[in-house]
């Protein structure tokens, strides 16, 4: 198990996660699904250690993350947030090199080896040609790929992604999905991604966790969990779930509000 969450409780003004237990297998690509406000982003923040649970435990390879120093945790686990708005006009290379932070000492500046890691990450996400561009001038799809590259320069073995395709057009959605699948396959990066895109989840994720009202409704292999009944329970929507021959995965067609 890469990540295990046991009996986690967390509350945040009007919202609460209660008794959440989730296990994420090493090398898996796990999708977090659920309606707005169900706790997906909060769960990701808890997994990354940004928020601390009130009760329960989150463990990385069996070791509670609360006991792992920040920098050590950041060398193993990286996060791709929904959107990134830097306050200053950093270049793409500067943004990506910041991923090396947990690998550097307090006054250490990055050297050629760190630069090579950053180049490699830019190359892997198809953004090496953008290295000298100001980050803010990029398109949404380019930004998202650069942010994924920045997370990769942390050399993590677990990557948490919050709606990685939410603001992208169809072409970029497929591109980012293919990129994630490739990184998962080639670099053996375990991934947990929160998404509203059921077809993305169906195509990409081998495991799904369905969250509703701060509780786990269902979890398991995608082919078992992603059913019309589950979608109805989750979103209150009637949907057809069928295997699509040409796409090679399950597809979800929402029909009407139930």
């Amino acid at each position, binding site marked *: 198990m890469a990540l295990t969450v046991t009996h986690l409780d967390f509350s945040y003004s009007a919202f609460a996660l209660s008794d959440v237990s989730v296990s994420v297998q090493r090398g898996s690509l796990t999708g977090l699904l659920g309606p707005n406000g169900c706790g997906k982003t909060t769960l990701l923040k808890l997994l*990354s250690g940004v928020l601390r649970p009130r009760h329960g435990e989150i463990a990385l390879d069996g070791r509670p993350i609360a006991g792992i120093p*920040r920098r*050590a945790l950041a060398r193993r686990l990286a996060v791709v*947030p929904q959107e990134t708005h830097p306050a200053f006009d950093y270049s793409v290379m500067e943004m990506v090199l*910041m991923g090396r932070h947990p690998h550097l000492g307090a006054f250490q500046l990055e050297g050629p080896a760190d630069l090579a890691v950053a180049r490699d990450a830019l190359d892997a996400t198809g953004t090496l040609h953008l290295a000298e561009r100001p980050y803010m001038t990029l398109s949404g799809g380019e930004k998202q790929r650069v942010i994924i590259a920045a997370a990769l320069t942390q050399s993590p073995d677990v990557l948490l992604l919050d709606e990685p395709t939410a603001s992208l057009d169809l072409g970029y959605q497929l591109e980012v999905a293919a990129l994630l699948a490739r990184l998962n396959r080639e670099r053996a990066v375990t991934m947990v991604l929160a998404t509203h895109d059921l077809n993305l989840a169906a195509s990409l994720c081998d495991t799904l966790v369905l969250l509703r009202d701060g509780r786990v409704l269902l979890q398991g292999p995608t082919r078992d969990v992603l059913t019309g009944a589950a979608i109805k329970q989750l979103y209150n929507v009637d949907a057809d779930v069928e295997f699509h021959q040409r796409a090679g995965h399950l597809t979800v067609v929402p029909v009407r509000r139930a």
Partner: protein
Amino acid sequence: MVIRERLAVTVGGYGALALLTCAVAPLVGSTPISFSRVFDRSIPFADNVDAQIFFIARMPRVLAGAVVGAALASAGVVLQALLRNPLATPFTLGVSAGAALGAVLAIAMGAAATLGPLSPVPLASLAGACVAAAIVYGLATRPGRPISTSVLLLAGVTLNSFFSALILFAQYMADFAETYRTVRWLMGDLDVGSFGAVGATLPLLMGAFAIFALLPSSLNLMSVGTDVAATRGVDVGRAQRLAFLGTSLAAGAAVALAGPIGFVGIVVPHLVRLMVGVDHRIVLPASALFGAAFLVACDLVARTVIAPIELPVGIVTALLGGPFFLWLLVRRS
């Protein structure tokens, strides 16, 4: 160029500029003096008027300009990153208003307490800065949570106007002489009189610079996002507290020494970013050095532009800085 070389070139270049400015500035003034005479060892110091003007009359003022300029510019850089707002200044968080209120009260009450070389007005203004910083910090922090930067900003802005009201009240109750002194103090002036005053604030400023030296890479990450910084291994709460403490020390000490000299903390960081990019590991040292050169140069203008009258330098920085600030606003939108 890799960061190591960029840093070396930048610090070398701006360092040379700062040193050169500090060496040239005391030579220029309403009374012309000769460089060779200043350093002519054959004339006893007691008889060498040029050396006396250089070292006793002008050098303390130049040194004060250098340390105040460096402190305000670097505090500006740190606060702009902490608040994720490029238009923040060292005075945004109310520290200067607190310092000003302290100074005004000391003038109005004719306070006489001294502490070593610190005379009553700087002492009171330091106390005021501490009070303001404590209030803002108390409002913006909750145990176990990162500082709320929006509360920090709003509390600072509110405190600024509240303290300004108190300053106006104190002035209204004061007599003409006190009011005149207050107004002059509020203009910001580097006429510190002796090395003693500079020396007295130096430990505070050194403390601030030592704190700033710990911060640059955390500032880079926090200016991208506090959650991003946390997931890359930055102890965000600690970095925020250090940034707040360092900027309060720098702004409090600078204002105690020279009054609230405006615009240095915003003009310098922006000019530096235009020249060297936005990486805080380069911007922060470059701003400190350029800030020193900038304020010394502004003060040179203030001393000479309508000589023999010496203007308070705050007037010069505001005349330069106001239009620059507006230009920045227009350029951003």
